[in-house]
């Protein structure tokens, strides 16, 4: 037995990272960040509005939350759609109660299918983050270049046209990118993406082929209802407890190291369920009673960060 010669070679064994998308940097060596009005923790809530097509392709993989049974999987299709009809309204009622503005990551297909939601987001003053076309149209290494460019263009053109918002943020469906995603979204005017979770603070990304710089925002895959309640199967109480522990840890750290970001990711068909929604209320009530909290959307946080 032997493995191929290239398996024993390490062409990218060098100082820093093994890719050119971003530079190696230690969080605790950077200069302190000051948030507006002396705030120590920026609270960034992002809610996903997704469309899972019944004929979702299985390759190269299915986005989390995708169809499970043989076609037609009405069970999962309608369960997900529940979020866009009922769950999101419950989440918005709780956010309104605590006067919280948020970011909404949205497939362009959701905007086309449900213009009501776009109008409601605009009326609330929330920011839309483009989340591709739908959860069946992934971005992934090895995909056709022209197809990817078409997906980016369709998503951004549709969302900008229907919402009138400039749309500066991007989250790839399933947070999956190809080698070229950053290039295509940067060329289309995107300033930040939510797919890279290497940090607790924004960090600069370099899009390939000289397309220029953009930012990775620390959209959380950890402090999310999907990760904690669905993947980890923790109870709603335990979700609240981990949000509180996250805040406490970040708040403590901010004293010495400067402003931090508490990123809370919500999914309407998960957190917007009848028996769960009150726990979002409990968590937000607690968070909003904490000192030095600044509620902001992705663009506002990034703008404040860039001014430093």
């Amino acid at each position: 037995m032997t493995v191929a010669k290239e398996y024993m070679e390490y062409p990218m064994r060098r100082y820093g990272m093994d890719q050119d998308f971003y530079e190696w940097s230690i969080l605790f060596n950077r200069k302190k960040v000051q948030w507006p009005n002396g705030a120590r923790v920026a609270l960034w809530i992002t809610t996903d509005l997704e469309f899972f097509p019944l004929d979702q392709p299985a390759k190269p993989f299915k986005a989390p939350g995708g169809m499970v049974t043989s076609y037609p999987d009405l069970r999962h299709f309608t369960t997900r759609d529940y979020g866009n009809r009922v769950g999101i309204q419950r989440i918005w009622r709780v956010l309104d109660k605590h006067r919280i503005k948020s970011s909404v990551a949205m497939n362009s297909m959701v905007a086309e299918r449900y213009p009501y939601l776009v109008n409601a987001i605009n009326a609330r003053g929330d920011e839309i983050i483009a989340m591709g076309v739908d959860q069946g149209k992934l971005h992934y290494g090895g995909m056709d270049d022209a197809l990817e460019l078409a997906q980016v263009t369709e998503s951004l053109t549709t969302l900008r046209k229907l919402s009138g918002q400039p749309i500066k943020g991007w989250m790839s469906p399933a947070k999956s990118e190809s080698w070229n995603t950053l290039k295509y979204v940067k060329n289309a005017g995107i300033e930040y993406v939510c797919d890279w979770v290497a940090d607790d603070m924004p960090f600069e990304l370099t899009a390939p082929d000289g397309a220029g710089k953009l930012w990775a925002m620390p959209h959380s895959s950890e402090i999310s209802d999907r990760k904690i309640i669905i993947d980890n199967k923790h109870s709603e109480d335990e979700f609240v407890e981990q949000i509180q522990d996250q805040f406490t840890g970040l708040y403590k750290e901010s004293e010495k190291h400067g402003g931090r970001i508490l990123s809370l990711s919500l999914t309407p068909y998960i957190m917007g369920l009848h028996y769960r929604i009150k726990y979002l209320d409990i968590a937000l009530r607690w968070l909003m009673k904490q000192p030095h909290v600044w509620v902001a959307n992705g663009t506002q946080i990034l703008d404040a960060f860039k001014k430093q």
Partner: protein
Amino acid sequence: MKPDLNLYDYWPYENRPKITWPGGARVAFWVAPNIEFYEINPPINPKRTPWPRPHPDVNLYSNRDYGNRVGHWRMMEVMDKYDVRGSISLSVALLDHHPEIIKACADRNWEFFSHGIYNTRYSYDMDEAQERAIMEDSINSVKKATGQRIAGWLAPALTHTERTMDLLAEYEFLYTCDLFQDDQPQPVKVNKGRLISMPYSLEINDIIVYNSYLATPRRYGQMIKDQFDQLYEEGKDSGTVMCIPLHAYAVGHPHRMAAFEEALDYITTKPGVWVATAREIAEYYYKNCYDTCAADIAARKGA
């Protein structure tokens, strides 16, 4: 393939020679931060795919990198607070990628041992020369960067060949963390020289607890304390070893730090606990326990 590599003899956990750790301690306690580098576009091993999604799997790649940029520094601060020196399971290429982490650990007199070159390169199907190459690379690279001659091995991503243990003994490694048959060290049967198995853990390991058992942070803290209590009790009869393996990309998130800190506080404030590195435990074992234990194993085998 064989049904058993016959790496150690059966040795019931009863009436063993009494191990007493330095200072009369009942538990030798060590912490093993895995400081790893996962490549964004590694070559493919015939037996295992490094990433679940097509390359670049940017979400999982950046999740792993979080440990080096962010989590490591939180974990190290808590270990400093309780005077716990880490025994580092090192992706050796990290010496090149992130020398700042290496310096911070070397300045604290932490121990380095090898966890392969990258955690995205697996030993499966390597021929002898290839496996020797990663061992020699590990020995030489760590020596050059830190002055330490590595004494321990945890195979990259726990991938082995039939000859791994023999090669480790030949290169005069003191211990392997790859065997999970016991809560005490034990001689490993190798062709030439000596090698012992050092209790590591695939139970109280943050990755197993968080990603396989899907535990909450507080439950993880409780599991650590419960494991310690049991080994502390049994350590009255013969000294036990407790290791907490960590990965900064898992334990180093803000919402997980408090439970870990509480568990470290619980263990390090108990009397009769020897807070050590794996090398210190291995050296003590060779000097004071190896021969007695080897004789006991041999005697029981004959019985």
